[in-house]
């Protein structure tokens, strides 16, 4: 059992003008896989390091299994961390690296050996136990770093961008390994990344951070389906959501009629009670929710194709409207659209998003079928 509770956690570095972490509250359940995601410099590492005990907590309370841990040192918290640089001890063999913590804990040699060998088996490192880190590939080093965490049977695993030093293919593979490991160890994990695909695929719960604040917190599907604001909408989901300005024409019980600055008039199924006619809004539509229509129309957007990316199973079409806006549409792989073509886009008002003048999402009226969403996310990642 390992639960983690953050209550209004704050951090101000000495000498820094503003707080780096501006009050983060979070509950991590036992065996949950929580991912902190956000752009570089938003304070993900700082937050993780405060949980680990490597940075002092300036305000708020951190509790592990209900016990306040603010004043406990890193070793006393029972956590293990995997660093971005791996931080392996270069002069020790893989075995020595993994058993270092056990040796310091004065565990009997037999027990140590058993734990190291078990971890090596899980991570397929058995043949490499007597090598030094420099004799290993990047992926193997990464696994040693994880092995060093596993042998300690920590309450919570902490990962700080563990895959960012690997090449794309290896990153995909290690991502799967981590997901497998999470199941196999039934461990609580907190994982930091700036890569939203890692966040979507690994997380039970995603915490989107920006400038030291939690922008939104929820399951990957919740964030994908109902982003709370423009920032989350733009950050979660690949390819990125199209976000373009417009204004409200009319509000009705079954939705809002809006006019995009680039022309089309659309009916979107969002709650209109917060919006007044004439209010400036931002319209959001995911590239996979837009269809290429045969003809132009008042609810259609016309644009010239500037780039076509054939990904095999799908095609990404980038277009530019007469007003200069860039739009991205995802169509099927057999699409014959070519650069220079003029295409017309059709929108589905039940899956589109509207954000008010403050960038906050206007609640949508239609809930989605989760299984259909799941299928779509698999296709995205």
């Amino acid at each position, binding site marked *: 059992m390992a639960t983690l509770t953050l209550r209004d956690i704050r951090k101000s570095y000495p000498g820094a003008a503003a707080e780096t972490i501006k009050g983060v509250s979070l509950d991590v359940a036992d065996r949950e896989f929580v991912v902190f995601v956000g752009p570089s410099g938003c304070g993900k590492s700082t937050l993780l390091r405060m949980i*680990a*005990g*490597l940075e002092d907590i300036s305000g708020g309370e951190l509790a592990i299994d209900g016990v306040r841990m603010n004043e406990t*040192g*890193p*070793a006393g918290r029972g*956590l*293990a*961390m995997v*660093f*971005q*640089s791996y*931080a*392996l*001890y*270069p*002069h020790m063999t893989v075995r020595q690296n993994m058993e*270092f*913590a056990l040796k*310091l*804990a004065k565990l009997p040699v037999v027990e140590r050996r058993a734990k190291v060998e078990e971890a090596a088996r899980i991570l397929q490192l058995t043949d490499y136990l007597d090598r030094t880190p420099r004799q290993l590939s990047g992926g193997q080093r990464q696994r040693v770093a994880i092995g*060093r965490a596993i042998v*300690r049977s920590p309450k919570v695993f902490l990962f700080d961008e563990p895959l960012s030093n690997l090449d794309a293919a290896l990153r995909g593979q290690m991502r799967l390994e981590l997901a497998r490991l999470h199941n196999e160890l039934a461990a609580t994990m907190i994982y930091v990344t700036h890569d939203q695909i890692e966040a979507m695929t690994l997380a039970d719960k995603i915490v989107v951070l920006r400038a030291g604040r939690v922008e939104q917190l929820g399951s990957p599907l919740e964030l994908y389906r109902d982003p709370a604001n423009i920032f989350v909408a733009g950050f979660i989901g690949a390819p990125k959501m199209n976000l373009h300005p417009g204004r409200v024409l009319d509000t009705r019980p079954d939705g809002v009629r809006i006019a995009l600055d680039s022309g089309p008039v659309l009916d979107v199924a969002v709650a209109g009670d917060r919006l007044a006619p004439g209010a400036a809004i931002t319209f959001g539509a995911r590239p996979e929710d837009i269809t290429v229509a045969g003809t132009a129309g008042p609810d259609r957007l016309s644009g010239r194709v500037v780039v076509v990316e054939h990904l095999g199973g799908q095609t990404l079409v980038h277009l530019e409207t007469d007003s200069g806006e860039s739009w991205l549409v995802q169509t099927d792989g057999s699409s014959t659209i070519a650069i220079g073509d003029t295409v017309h886009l059709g929108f589905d008002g039940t899956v589109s998003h509207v954000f008010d003048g403050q960038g906050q999402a206007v609640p949508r009226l239609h809930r989605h079928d989760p299984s259909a969403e799941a299928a779509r996310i698999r296709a995205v990642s």
Partner: protein
Amino acid sequence: MSASTMPASRSRGAGLPFLAPSVLVLLLWMIVPLAMTLWFSTQRYNLLDPTQTGFAGIDNYYYLVTDPDFWTSLVNTLVLVVSVLVITVGLGTLLAVLYDTAFPGRNIARLLVIAPFFVMPTVSALMWKNLMMHPIYGLFGVVAHAFGFAPIDWFAQYPMAAIVIIVSWEWLPFAVLILLTAVQSLDGEQKEAARLDGAGPIAQFVYIILPHMRRAITVVIMIETIFLLTIFAEIFVTTSGGPGTATTTLAYLIYARALLQYDVGGASAGGVVAIVLANIVAIFLVRSIARNLEA
């Protein structure tokens, strides 16, 4: 010769004409004095007695090794070198680790610790002799007096210890400089990983910092040894090798033979021994460095 080694060896041959001038200079620089020393060491050659000439065979060496002063000087050299090494490397490591952590005034402290390096040996020896260790005017004497102790006459009572202190003071900056760079190059995440693994400051030092510094420590030992074997000015200025032969090192013995007793032959024999000694040390240290570089 296999095909793959051909280009390499050909290019090595092609570089020879360009290498030749520097090799030639190096040869003249080293071989000529070495040959002359070897030659003189087999000659009867005393500046005070021009009539004494001719081939002496191994007589000069015989007189040298049967001279008790020679063995004393070897022991003194060893004591000086080892003590200074222990003090500078030990204290240097400690200071390097200390100066790696942040504290107010760190930059000034660093500057102060480096400063002795810029004082020339004769000056620092004189400074220590007259300002610090002098039983009447020296700071140590004053402090001892203030606390009611009898001042120590360093150069009479503990001459070797006094020399060791002076030379250590001169060489500590070098050790700190090299070792500090080594400590600073340690990846901070390694220390943090060790902290999470439950390593306290001492365990971190022993298992993480010290192994990381091993190569730098070897370099410091090698370079210092080579310079410490030839320490002369400090002894000349303070004790002149005395009292008796208490601080006569091999370097000082050679000086005394050549320029106090005008026995060029005997001094050269001492010089040859010094060369052999330095080379033994060098071989040892180059080997250990090479092994470190491989590891």
